[in-house]
């Protein structure tokens, strides 16, 4: 069984063509701008949106532990008191207003691939299925089986990963992966650790390994002004990537702050990035550096 955060149909940003993307739960990175903080833990997560609450009090009467509190300031929830009764579903099912939702659903590989294949008529030759996360390689056994089933059905497969894992995990899925989408967040190990919580040597090693294996890759660089979007970082990225023969394309995009609602729903505080300045200019400047440093070898692509 695998734990899946979400299935997104008509996905246009996760590889070529029209795709369906399965977002798997669990991640070993803690990127400070992460858009999917609900995927970090390898377990189902309660998300609470107090602004949707209509004050019906059904959850209050259900919860023996007092996790729900109603006061003059509205409905509050204390996650430390929640013991996840009914697999978290008790509150969710009781709530008419969808103020509480649970993130994470278990699938067998067969069930998941059945869902992913539903839109195959739209995929044509280049579209298909993408597995993303979280860190998708955290569930490498499940992922490998899903990929195998996809290939048995003739579906094009992408794996979207930060590749910050042991190489053997990558090798386990490579056989059934047509294209890797690999995030490259920083070249400097210390900076990578500052931004993502872990250093990056395995990412670098794995990108090199995929290149040696002849596996096509699209590299994705999230730009954070003043952090990785510096001349020295971008030059280092370009120098590294130009030496990897199977990098077909490099996508460059600014980190945006779209996930603030999710952080709040998880009882967390999200950080804000790239609030100041022109993000289009950020992209253009970065592209110029990458282009120059790679002598035009890299196929650079703007995502906005």
């Amino acid at each position, binding site marked *: 069984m695998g734990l899946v955060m979400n299935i997104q*149909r*008509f996905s*246009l940003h996760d590889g070529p063509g029209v795709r369906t993307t399965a977002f798997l739960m669990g991640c070993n990175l803690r990127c400070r701008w992460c858009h999917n903080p609900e995927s970090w833990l390898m377990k189902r997560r309660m998300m609470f949106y107090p602004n949707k609450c209509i004050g019906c009090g059904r959850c209050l009467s259900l919860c023996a532990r007092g996790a729900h509190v109603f006061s003059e300031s509205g409905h509050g929830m204390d996650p430390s008191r929640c013991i996840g009764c009914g697999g978290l579903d008790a509150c969710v099912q009781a709530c008419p207003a969808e103020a509480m939702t649970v993130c994470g659903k278990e699938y067998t590989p067969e069930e998941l691939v059945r869902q992913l294949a*539903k839109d195959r008529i*739209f995929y044509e030759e280049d579209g298909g299925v993408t597995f993303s996360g979280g860190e998708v390689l955290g569930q490498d056994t499940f992922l490998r089986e899903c990929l195998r089933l996809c290939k048995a059905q003739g579906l094009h497969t992408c794996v979207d990963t930060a590749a910050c894992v042991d190489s053997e995990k990558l090798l386990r899925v490579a056989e059934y992966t047509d294209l890797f989408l690999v995030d490259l967040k920083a070249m400097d190990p210390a900076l990578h650790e500052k931004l993502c919580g872990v250093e990056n040597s395995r990412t670098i090693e794995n990108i090199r390994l995929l290149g040696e294996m002849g596996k096509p890759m699209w590299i994705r660089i999230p730009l954070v002004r003043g952090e990785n979007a510096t001349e020295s970082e971008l030059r280092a990225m370009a120098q590294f990537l130009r030496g990897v023969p199977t990098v077909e394309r490099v996508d460059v995009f600014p980190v945006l702050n779209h996930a603030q609602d999710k952080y709040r729903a998880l009882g967390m505080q999200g950080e804000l990035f790239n609030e100041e300045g022109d993000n289009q200019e950020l992209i253009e400047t970065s592209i110029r550096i990458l282009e120059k440093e790679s002598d035009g070898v890299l196929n650079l692509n703007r995502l906005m």
Partner: protein
Amino acid sequence: MNVQMSVQEIRSSILEDIEGREIFIPESGFLAGPIYPVRAMVEAGIWRKQNYGWDNSHFPLNYKLLMQEGVPGIIRRASAPRDGLSEAQQEYRALIADSWRAIGEYILRHAEKAEALALERPEDAARLNRIALNCRTLASRAPDTFEQGVQLFWFIWRLRSTYTSCIGRMDVHLRELYERNVPARISRDEALCILCELWERLNETYSGDTLMNLMVGGVDENGEDVSCDLSNLIMEATMRVAKSEPHINVRIHPNSKPEFLDTAVRMIAMGQGQGVAYYDDNIIPALVNRGIPLEMARIYANDGCTEITFDSHSAIWFWQMESVKSLELALFRGKENPSTPFRPYNKWANFGRTEVYKTRLTLGHDSGDFAKMTTFEQVYEAFLDQYGYQIDRYMDQMAEHIRDNEETDKYCTSPIAAGLNEHALDTGSDPIRDGWEVKNYQMLSGSIPTLADCLHAIREGVFEKKLCTMAELIHALSVDFEGYEALRLELKKLPKFGNDEDSVDLLAAELAEFFCSRVEAYPAPCGIRPLPGIYNIDFNMFSGSVGATPDGRKGGDLICEHYSPTPGNAKNGPTAVIQSAAKANLKRGCASSPLYLVLPRGMGAVDVDMIRRMVMSCGKLGLPIVSISIYDKAVLEDALVHPEKHEDLVVRVWGFNARFIDLDDGLKRHVMNRML
């Protein structure tokens, strides 16, 4: 317009009307003939009813015949001696001939005025003399040039109706003139400019629910592809002008030429809803199956909205059933929900008369006491009893109208429309009774997806999850969910059509099948078999007069259009919507069963190739008609606040494109909420 007039009344009215019409020579360009802008006339209160007899303007006239014969040719045919005609037939032919003589003289007066102006303004004489030559030619014979053909179309199209009217297969009608002239006498660019001038003129006439539907591509009566360079040019003119008129519709089939498809997809990717796709493989066999001769089925076009007509060979009459209201009448035992809000509406535009819609369903039919029903099967059966009853009553109305048309002379067709009907020209028979090769009557019932959402909510909410009893549900509906907000939200949470969920999608498919079967089973009035369609143009009117519904919708809130999801309910993206729709046999609703998709502009990779895939996949999945629009929601929101900044923002509504800022408030909400 169902204008009941005698031949004598029409004669005096039309001759006087054409005689008194303004002669208009433009200050620039070449198209002579006045515009009569509809909105200005409505707002100034000088709307003039056109008393030419019956013509609802919803169907294309035989403009190909017009191009071949010219005005003099029409007059000659209507005047040629014929033996064995009754006095009434002779009188009707004379009316046609005299009306078209008046048209010829009207055109000639334009030539004379242009010539006089040329003498007054030597600096503009070349242009004015060109107009004069065009008009003089058209008054004396069939058009020689593409420009004259377009001029003739404009004269007749504008004379046909004080309002506006359907255009039909322009690439078929004008192809011969185009190919005779381009590039031998004028360049392709010049031809494009001619079309663009016509497009501008159409937009000056009116914008929105104008009936100005034009179809390109498809096959001829022998099944051969008709798309040509003119088809592409028509689409290019639409992209260049980038306004709401005319509304372009594109017929697609396996042998459509690549350049035709490429141009069509580029036009659709503009996002204005231009280029509604009609799939020949999913439409023609279904029409044949319903008794339409193959040759006629092959030459279909759409009418002033999205319904099927048979280009140049049929008129159209259609009735719209209210499916969601049928459920309301069932639940309230033949009465309306007491909390029905009766929200005022304008049919589509934000100007003109505001009205409150009153249901045209038959009140008083009791299908049982739903409050006491204990299984979904009982509810469903009782609902079908009410729905079937209401369909039959609508069919009764249609049957009565068919008998009026077939067996009486209550309606007399306008001589302008009859002049482009060969049978009427030659025999003097009114086309209503004996002239259109296809008697095109249609019974339509849209909003079935909202109906399915409601019935599924009863099945799962009441009988499976036991959120409430039937009695409690009906009471909650009767008070518009006041005091039942938690129940309302629970009902809204249940699966809804448009998310590729079999539970509700298959129910919708079953309801669509029921409707089509019921229409088909009705004894054919006068031997005429009406076409069923899963379609409604009046969903905005209907929604304002439907009370709260079991899907958690409050009274007056939006219901869906055609076979599309209820606005706001589709959460899984466009492919899921398409898959939901494809579970129904929409081909059977051969009068028109469209799916409307609205994509957000901000999704990034929506490009021409993506649109191509979507368009082609819909056809493969068996959908007959699909409209794809792409909007930027932020722009629509800004247009609500600052309409003056968004005068060029064009959106698709039902069978037409319109400027967003002109729409009725209910339709603005509808357009915004159906975005996926």
